[in-house]
């Protein structure tokens, strides 16, 4: 049985997305910013699964399957970029990474 309505699931998804966005905006550590991006991605998958379940279809679930795969690839490449950046600049703080500014 489904213990909650579609509305509840969407509110949960929006709340999770908003928390992730807040983290992206206020954190200064690139790694933590990246974790918050993952939170936003997970929030979107929650909405997709909820819509799929409440429509009685499978398409949203399959899409989430693909999103999980792409997220794995994305995290691998992103962390490799962060490591390369750290090798070059010896920091992962966002404020120090401003060489493209001006």
């Amino acid at each position, binding site marked *: *049985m*489904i*213990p909650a309505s579609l509305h509840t699931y969407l509110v949960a998804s929006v709340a*999770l997305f908003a928390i992730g966005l807040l983290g992206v905006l206020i954190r200064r550590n690139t*790694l933590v910013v990246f974790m918050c991006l*993952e939170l936003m991605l997970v929030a979107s998958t929650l909405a997709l*699964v909820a819509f799929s379940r409440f429509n009685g279809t499978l398409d949203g*679930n399959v899409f989430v399957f693909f999103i999980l795969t792409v997220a794995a690839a994305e995290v691998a490449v992103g962390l490799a970029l962060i*490591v390369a950046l750290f090798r070059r600049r010896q920091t992962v703080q966002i404020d120090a990474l401003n060489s493209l500014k001006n």
Partner: protein
Amino acid sequence: MNLPSLLFSGFLILTLVSALGVVLNRNAVNAAMCLLLCLVGVAGLFVALDAYLLAFLLLLVYAGAIVALFLFIVMLLDARGDARPSLHRLPLAARVVAGLLVLAGVASFLLRGRLPSPEVAALPAAGAALKPYAYQLFTTYLLPVQILGFLLLIAMIGVIVLSRKFVPIEEGS
């Protein structure tokens, strides 16, 4: 209040509280651990939606692989404790606009966003069994599966290229 609703509320609170923990924790390792807890909560919410395979995959891929990768990188970079996260560095206009937008969105969602909630008991739980997934993945979504395979290959090669040390090739050798 019956058991499923109780479990749902528990997982929902776990998800949101540990998501806040990711955002507000100063230590990157603690943030990664909070991310792990948050993913466990989301997997519980997936189970409540009858998406058992996705809950399992979320735990396996995210909690098993991605959070472990994050922890490895935190260990590798020896990331010091972050400065206390603060709003002071955001420009004032950005803060005001973001706050108003969030307020307007939440208000309209709560006041007028009553979606028609269908009678779920009548709907088939399409994501509960494994067979429909396999059928869909190997018929309708065969091309995306192939493309994803190539994407993973490209990501793997990219990571290898990115993470090796570049040694300038000497002249004449």
